């Protein structure tokens, strides 16, 4: 009986070692990731880049194409999330204004495309 107890304890110790090795010493190394997994602050900064370019270009379609980089979600929602994050962390007023301008443009193109849909 004591041998079985020792055997089970040994397995538990082995599992512990395996978890330590797999999660800590040699975890799965991610490379070649996709932008939709970017952390929220980097996503928000990317949206800000798009907004900065949009400020001059005023091309919602081009901006929408750039926002598609962040995934297949609704571009307006992507900008809205970035705007919320920007408000939370205290982006400057000029950057917030850029993001709002981009949001308006993206919403405008979304509205017009909905209007064209029969």
């Amino acid at each position, binding site marked *: 009986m004591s041998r079985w107890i020792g055997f089970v304890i040994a397995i538990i110790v082995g599992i512990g070692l395996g978890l330590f090795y797999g*999660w800590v010493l040699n975890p799965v190394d991610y490379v070649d990731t996709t932008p939709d997994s970017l952390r929220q602050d980097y996503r928000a900064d990317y949206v800000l880049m798009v907004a900065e370019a949009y400020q001059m270009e005023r091309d919602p379609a081009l901006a929408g194409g750039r926002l598609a*980089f962040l995934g297949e979600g609704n571009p307006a929602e992507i900008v809205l999330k970035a705007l919320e994050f920007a408000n939370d962390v205290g982006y400057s007023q000029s950057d917030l204004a850029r993001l709002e301008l981009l949001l308006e443009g993206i919403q405008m193109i979304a509205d017009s495309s909905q209007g064209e849909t029969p």
Partner: protein
Amino acid sequence: MTRESRGPWYLLTGVIIGFIVGLLYTWVFSPAEYVDTHPDALRADYKDAYRAAIAAAYSVTEDMTRAQARLSLLNEEDSASILAAQSQHYLAEGYSYEAALALARLSAALGEVPEPAPRTATSMPAPSETPLPEDTATVELNATEETELTTTETVESPNESTTPEVVEDGLPTSTSNISPTPTLTRTPILTFTPLPTRTPTPTLAPPFVMREQALVCDQEIEDSLIQILVQNALGDGIPGVKIIIHWDGQEEHFFTGLKPEMGWGYADYSMTPEISYTLNIGEGGEPVDLFVPECSDDQGERYWGGWRLIFAHP
């Protein structure tokens, strides 16, 4: 063999079985989480798109410090040459000319702007030592690697507030203990505030002028090349300068710096004999008319040569 004489091998067997089960769990069933990644882990084509966005934003704001901060997130050495190469690639692949131009301009601007001073914790003024006016951009840089390093640059921005906000979003920063989510702790979070002294003033550079035009007669060079060197006033090569070449109603654009082994300001173009070319360097440069020259060797045999042109800011 009795049970006693077999010794404690069953314990080792248990440990090995447990270890394998643990590995299976961590590598297969519940691997480290694949969320909240850093831009430097992006796939190469996504990095290209990221760089293009940085360049597009820079072309509007001309905020070099912000562009450099963003490029640093990609953790690449020699961003200027990477941008120049991407610009040329975009032109070759038929991407929009504006995108290629934005990349080339950022590359050129990076080539002219000195590298930012190394950021160390001790070299930065404490935030409290620098009172900030309302219009001051403040961004914190928290780099969390094996050992925690927190640096803060606080600088006054004389104009509008410029804040490349890539800030810590409440993730635990302590890495003194081993974290169960190691992919998150190796992520440096880089943000910093522009130093006014490092911010380039957006002034128009004077047009390049030709300093030297030399005939190149070298039979080892197979093509009839126009070899172009574009330099600043100090004689350093400038990458990312657009060169426009015209011939017979056709036009082609290319950029300096795409052959770094030849120098940052180097570019070349292969001419076809008996065609006249007109070359323009940068914006507003004086056009240069060229044709394929003839050379002759010691025996009097003729062959096609090339040109070596050096342009510089006056």
